[in-house]
Each structure stands twice: as structure tokens, then as C-alpha cells.
């Protein structure tokens, strides 16, 4: 298994598929503690990414992620647009023009993505945002890569599982950032939509490699 540009394109394609399939669920999550648009935003954004990919086949994984960043930035809007835009942009920068991604590279990219989200949104862990999916994911990837393994799939799986667990762990939290924070205590008992979509994105990365 190599993580090359074909993997990246498959990943983004699976992301678009996941957003379309989970559009209603993400809207429902956002309806409970936000403004009912997260699923629509993500679906619109990744459909636009698909269109861009059809127009110009990128040459490296980094180029694919950069194209994704610019597209999400210009099509998603809301909080998620700039945050995911920054995440993909930073990941792209971390990957540079490498044709293939090794485990260390991959972990670096996920850490960069997380750092980008934190830099933009100023949220901390436990604020009930997408950071609560990305931080454990980045850390799990780092840990998995630290073994010196050449198993990129293992790194991806570790990240995806940690992201999923992180998203689930937002359920009981009281939001301190984003729209859900307006609800105060009433935000507890609901999953954060951005954390949920983040877990979907990382799960798609596994799917693309499997």
C-alpha cells in the first residue's frame, strides 16, 4: 500500500461520498446545538472538490490537498469552511511535493492539520469542537509512526479510530467555542457536528487505502 496521488484522489472522493451519505445526519447534529447547516455545508464543499478534481488531476498528494483546501475555503463558508480549509492547506504544506507519503510524513501532516485548526479557531481540547477529533487523531498517528513502522495503513487506522473516539467523547461536553457555546449546559448530550465530520474524513482516508 502506497499513499500516492491516486490514494489522495480516492480519499477525497470517499470524503465526498461520506458527506453526501451523512448530509442529513450532520444537519441533524447541527440542528440540535447549532444552525442546521453543517451537513449541507460539507456536502456542498466536497461536491465542489470532486468537480475541481475532474477538471485538473493533481500531480502529488500535496497538490490534491491544496486544491481541496482552496475549494473548501471558497465553497463551504460558515466556521467549517475556513477551519477545514486551513487544515488541508497546512497538511498540504507539510507534505510538500512528495509523490508518496511515509508514516512519519503522514503523522506530520495530521499534526499540521490539527495545528492549523487550533491556530484559526483558538479552541482547546474539551471545547466540544472538531479539535476534539483532530487532536487524538494526530497524537495516535504520531504514536503509531514513532514505532518506525512502514505500515501507513496502520497509521491511518490509528488516526481514524482515535478521531471516532474523540468525536463520541464530545457527547457529554459543554461547548465553549462555536455556535453550540451559546447553548451553555444545553449543549451537553449531543455530538459536535464538526467532530463527527472530521471522523468521517479520517475514516475515508482508511477506506481509500484499504
Amino acid at each position, binding site marked *: 500500500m502506497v499513499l500516492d496521488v491516486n490514494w489522495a484522489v480516492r480519499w477525497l472522493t470517499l470524503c465526498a461520498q461520506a458527506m453526501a451519505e451523512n448530509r442529513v445526519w450532520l444537519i441533524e447534529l447541527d440542528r440540535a446545538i447549532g444552525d442546521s447547516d453543517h451537513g*449541507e455545508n460539507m456536502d456542498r464543499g466536497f461536491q465542489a472538490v470532486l468537480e475541481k478534481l475532474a477538471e485538473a488531476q493533481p500531480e502529488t498528494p500535496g497538490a490534491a490537498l491544496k486544491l481541496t483546501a482552496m475549494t473548501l475555503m*471558497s465553497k463551504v*463558508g460558515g466556521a467549517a469552511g*475556513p477551519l477545514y480549509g486551513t487544515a488541508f492547506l497546512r497538511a498540504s504544506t507539510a507534505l510538500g511535493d512528495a509523490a508518496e507519503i511515509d508514516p512519519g510524513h503522514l503523522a506530520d501532516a495530521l499534526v499540521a492539520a490539527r495545528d492549523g485548526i487550533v491556530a484559526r479557531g483558538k479552541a482547546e481540547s474539551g471545547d466540544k469542537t472538531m479539535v476534539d477529533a483532530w487532536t487524538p487523531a494526530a497524537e495516535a498517528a504520531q504514536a503509531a509512526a514513532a514505532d518506525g513502522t512502514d505500515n501507513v495503513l496502520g497509521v491511518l487506522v490509528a488516526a481514524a479510530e482515535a478521531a471516532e473516539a474523540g468525536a463520541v467523547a464530545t457527547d457529554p461536553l*459543554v461547548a465553549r467555542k462555536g*455556535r453550540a*457555546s*451559546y447553548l*451553555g449546559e444545553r449543549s451537553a448530550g449531543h455530538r459536535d457536528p464538526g467532530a463527527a465530520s472530521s471522523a468521517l474524513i479520517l475514516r475515508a482516508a482508511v477506506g481509500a487505502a484499504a
Partner: protein
Amino acid sequence: MKKLINDPRSVVDESVEGFGLAHAGLVTVTADPKYVTRKDAPVAGKVGLVSGGGSGHEPLHAGFVGLGMLDAAVPGAVFTSPTPDQILPATLAVNSGAGVVHIVKNYTGDVLNFETAAELAQAEGVDIRTVLVNDDVAVEDSLYTAGRRGVGGTVLVEKIAGAAAERGDSLDAVAAIGDRVNSNVRTMGVALTACTVPHAGSPSFDLADDEIEIGIGIHGEPGRHKIPMENADGITDRLLDPVLSDLGISGGEKVLLFVNGMGGTPLSELYIVYRRAAQVITERGAAVERSLVGNYITSLEMQGCSISVLRLDDELTQLWDAPVHTAALRWGV
């Protein structure tokens, strides 16, 4: 969901197109990327004023584009802030060289997208100031929230900063006036019913037949708490008390009282709320010098209202009274 729409995904496109047709003498609509500019933009020597945000709050913001108010409005998808690739060209289109003020409601999405656009505009040599509107007393501005939301006060900031720009104030002066309005206005809202976002298809929150949501924003998001339905005077007091005390209004002061409908409440009911609010303010020894009653910053078809109080001084009053000619607010011209 029953709406006068063709397709949930074309709501904003078609609505803005219709708006452009109906007000062709007043505005120019650019379709892609989408923004609305004053017909005569850029106005030579004048500071440009740009605002924007999610759609679904009409007439905000496009309805406030025109002489004495905004130079451009940037509509996002319903309840979703616009993107930098809309905000940037709108900003460039209204820059006459005197710089541009972004009026941004304090929501994470709006802030981040306008921030990016401002950076890009600065990089293209346009001087940008940002006025952040955060007048909603329902939200505590603390470490535990994203800060107070920009709600009803936005309309007043846009009108008054727009008048300052129109009279020829400098970039910093216009931004300072905008900040001054924001510091002197507070708002609180109530929902009697939820609204339905077209692409979502079901109401934005659940509310029983005998419940209301106190402290709502303008994005169909739930408020701070539900309470059993009360009469209009009781509801008015619940909204007005925190507004007045947070603003620290004392006897002898002059205010502008703004009773805003959320879109689905009859005007007659807004006047019942206005009546009580004006009585209470008068009883406290302050004077309602100016007023505004109607649907100006809405949440689709939501039933409910918000009450805003703005502390007036002579200059703000003068700027409020200055001529304005937009689709939704017009006087003196």
C-alpha cells in the same frame, strides 16, 4: 415544509436575482461570486462599507445597500457565512481608495471568513477596518462562549456608520462610529416558533405549543432556555430588563427603541411589544427619541421578536436621521 421556493439549493441565487430585478435602480447584483453593490459604487472619496453573513435574515444585508448605508452586501448560503472569494471582490468593488469597513456579526464563521478576506484585501493594497457587532445580551461574553452574537444592533450599526461614511468621515472615523454604536446597543430576542432551513427541511428546534425560547439568536439556533408561554407584556419585560441593565440606562438618557420581528410575526404584535417597551423605558425616566418597528433582521419565517435599545447622543441621532435610500430603509430622499 411549505415554502415559496423552487429548489432548496437555489433559494439564495433566485432570491438575490429577484431582489436585483426589483431594485435595479438601486443595486447591482453580481451572480458568481455572489454579492450586491450599490449602483454607483465605488463612490469617489467615500469610505466603503461592506457587510454580509448567512442568508435567511432578509432584508439584512442586501436590503440595506444604498445611499447612506452599505456599499456592498455579501450573502452566504442560508445561515452560513459567505466565503472570502465573495467578500474580497465585493470589497474591491466598493473601494474608492478611501478604504473599506467590514461590518461583521460576531459568529465564528463570519469572523473567520471576513478575517481571511480582509487579509487578502490588505495584500491588494486596500485599507480595511473591521467593526465587530456583538450586542446580544442573551450570551455571556466569557471564556465559555464564542462571545456575544451580533443581532438586532447590526442594523443600527450599518445605518449609522453608513451615514458617517456618506458625510465623508475617514476610514478610522467610520470604524470608530460603528464601534460606538456597537458599544451602546444591546439586544435580546424570543422565538414563539422555530424556523425551517430550506435544505434541512425540518424545524430548527422543537418547541411545544405552550413554550417559547428566550435568548435566541438569528440562525434558528435554540436560545438559552425555554419557558412557558406568557403574555406580550411579560415577554417584553423579560427581554427589555437585561437589555436595559446591561446597557446601564439611567434616567434622563435618550434612546432609540428597535422592536424587530423575526419574520413570521404580524406587525400588529410588534407594536404591542413596542407599546410595553416604550412604557417601561419612559417609567425609568429615559426618553425614547427614535424608534424602528418591523422585520429588519429575521430568521426566515420564525415567529418572535427582538428588542434593541441604543443609547443616543446628539451625533448618533443626527447620523440616524441622515438620509438613507435602500430597499428596506429609506428616508430624507
